[in-house]
């Protein structure tokens, strides 16, 4: 059936075809195009978020790796230090060692007075007072030797009194007193458990 003859011959199928195309176009617009645009936006956002999240994961992973490396280093150091740190049962041998070194340096020990072991900041601390007679330089050398041999103690007090020298009887020795503070780990202190979180 001819719908229109001028200016162009239009058949009924043309009208139906155009109507179908319009319907398809509308369906494409509302069913495909607009959702596709929304999808594209969502896809871009998700891609950006994913990319950022991956970047964050990479950074976090690197940081975690660094921290794990630090943990390993620290663990080794702590293990080594725990292993090397003195324990309470080593106090007596150390005092004996000091006495032995004193004899070596011509320092005559007259009194050794250990104080009770106390706990401070999780560590054990023991003060030991020494009294002796000898030359001042010998004492200083003794203390220097002790410092080089064992860093786990400090000189708390020291007194060299040369006023008691009696040159008339040939005794040029001074009264020597010093106090050492020994630092120790408790017996139950163990090396840190290894392993990464």
């Amino acid at each position, binding site marked *: *059936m*001819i719908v229109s003859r001028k200016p162009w011959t239009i058949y*009924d*199928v043309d009208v139906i*075809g155009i109507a*179908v195309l319009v319907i*398809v176009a509308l*369906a494409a617009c509302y*069913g*495909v195009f607009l*959702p*596709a645009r929304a999808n594209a936006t969502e*896809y871009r956002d*998700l891609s950006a*978020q994913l990319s950022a*999240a*991956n970047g*964050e*994961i990479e950074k*976090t992973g690197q940081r*975690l790796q660094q*921290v*794990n490396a630090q*943990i390993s280093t*620290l663990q080794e*150091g*702590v293990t080594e*230090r725990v292993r090397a*740190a*003195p324990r309470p049962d080593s106090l007596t041998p150390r005092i004996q060692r000091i006495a032995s070194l004193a004899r070596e340096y011509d320092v005559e020990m007259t009194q050794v007075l250990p*104080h009770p072991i*106390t706990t*401070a*900041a999780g*560590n054990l*601390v023991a*003060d030991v*007072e020494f009294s002796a007679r000898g030359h*001042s330089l010998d004492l*200083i050398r003794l203390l220097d030797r*002790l*410092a080089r041999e064992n*860093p*786990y103690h400090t*000189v*708390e*007090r*020291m*007194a*060299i*009194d*040369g006023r008691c020298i009696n040159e008339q009887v040939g005794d040029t020795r001074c009264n020597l007193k*010093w*106090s050492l*503070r020994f*630092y*120790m*780990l408790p017996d139950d202190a163990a090396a*840190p458990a290894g392993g*990464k979180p």
Partner: protein
Amino acid sequence: MLAHIGSRNSAITFDVGTAGVRAFQLNARGHNLVGRDLLNLELPPAQPSPDSTEFAPEYGRIARLVGQGNFTGCDVGLVLSPPDVRFCSLKLPKKALAQPEKRLREALAWEVAREMRADAHELEVRHWQLPEGHRQGTNVMAVALPIERALTWHQLVERGGARLRRIDVSPCTLAHLGGRIWTPENNDLWGILDLGYRATTLTVVLGRTPTYIRSLTASSAQWTRRLAESYELSLEEAEQVKRSHGIRAGQRGLRAPEPDQALLDADDIPAITFGLLRERLDQLVRDVNLCFSYVMQNYADVNASRLLLTGGGANMPGLAGFLELQLGLPTEPLASNAGAESTAWERPLPGTNVTPESAAAVGGALLDVDAGSQGGRANPALPAPCTVNLLPESCHNARRRLVRRNAWTAVAACAFILLAGTWVALRAAGHAIDGLGDELAAVQATQVELERQLVLAATARNGLADQSRGLETLRHEQPLPRQLLAVAQRAPEGIVLTEILADSDTGGGWNNARLVAPIITSQAASEPRPLTVRISGYAVDHEELTRLIAALKDERRWEQVELLRAAREPYRQGEALAFRLECRPGGVTQ
């Protein structure tokens, strides 16, 4: 393959007659025309009633014929002859001829309908203009076909899966085909006698334009019936006698048979047949003469040049000679191999054996190509052929509508497929986005887990660092012995030290008699206090004391070396400068 590029085929052109159906298709490649195939289906002469003018096409047979031939395409052309189509020469004013084609057709339809006593709306009318100079003033040849018949043909062809592209008329197709034998001049008057089974049509052509068309009373069927009655034969046998023996003018008068001669010899059959048909043949000659005379009277300075015979009746032996003898015109069948005496064609059709009965179909296909219905005439150098296409406008419109419907269907299908594909892609994209969201959630969960692990690791690291620092507090640097050794080495000669006290207690005064047990606190245990050193002794003089102070100051650990006391006192047997110094490390104030 490449040879097919640029070639085009004519419509499969049918000439549906009572005695047979002929189909022909032509392939045109530039100016070269080659027949693709020519099929000729003979129908039994007794089947259709010779007197019947009822239209009863058997398209099923035609479709089978098409299937047998080497044809291509689905376009079909049809060649119709009188009485299916009617011709009327009309006299129209020049103003009427100048009207638009549609108005002119309407005017012609009214005129023809009046002549045919029919309704103008039931006729499909076309026309061509006659050569100028007609003394009676007729200037238009109108051809009319009942629309219902055209639509019937159209529906039959469409039902067969083909498309009816053209409906031509045999006078035009035959005149066009005759133009390939020779090139007629404009004043050449020639005729085409189409001897059909039930009708004979004479077309008188002036130059290239069919000028006068008349249906004659003679017909091949009449001749066959006459022979059947006279010979007391069946129609098939009479037809066979007619075709095989033909006619030959016999000797005048009666002659007695020879003693040793049979009463009737086979050689006498053409003469006997001629005698039987003589009356009808003479009538045919008179009719042809009248027609030629009529045209020659109406057009001045025209020369009757020849008569061409077509149709199944043209194959009767002796007919052409008889007509030529009687009419005084060169007469020959319109065939490509009509015999040694026939004219050689100026423009033959290679690969095509044109016969008188197939001439209309061949001419129709040729006309389809030369009329340019397929986009350009095959030979533009020749004048435009005289042709009409009686296919009704409604068929064209139906065809155009069908084409558009198919196009719209294809477009809509493509649009639907595209839409469906896009929708599927959209769904896939949606799934991909969902997957991306899931992936993002997984990545974010991984990130949270990693951050948790990082916090745990940092906590563990800090714990280890604290532990390490705590262990580090067990180790302490002890510079005092080294410092005192250095001082002892660098002390001047005139110095005697009597007392050295090292203590961190700076506020309560020195008590060198006893060492007080320390009160150990966490702070004191973790951070050893710097020791302040107090040195007492005797110096020879102030200069020696100053040098001692300088030596003490050289020790960088002691930032402050303070002389507390310096006084002359008796020492041993003499007198010396008694002094007391205080050396404070950095961070210790008195």
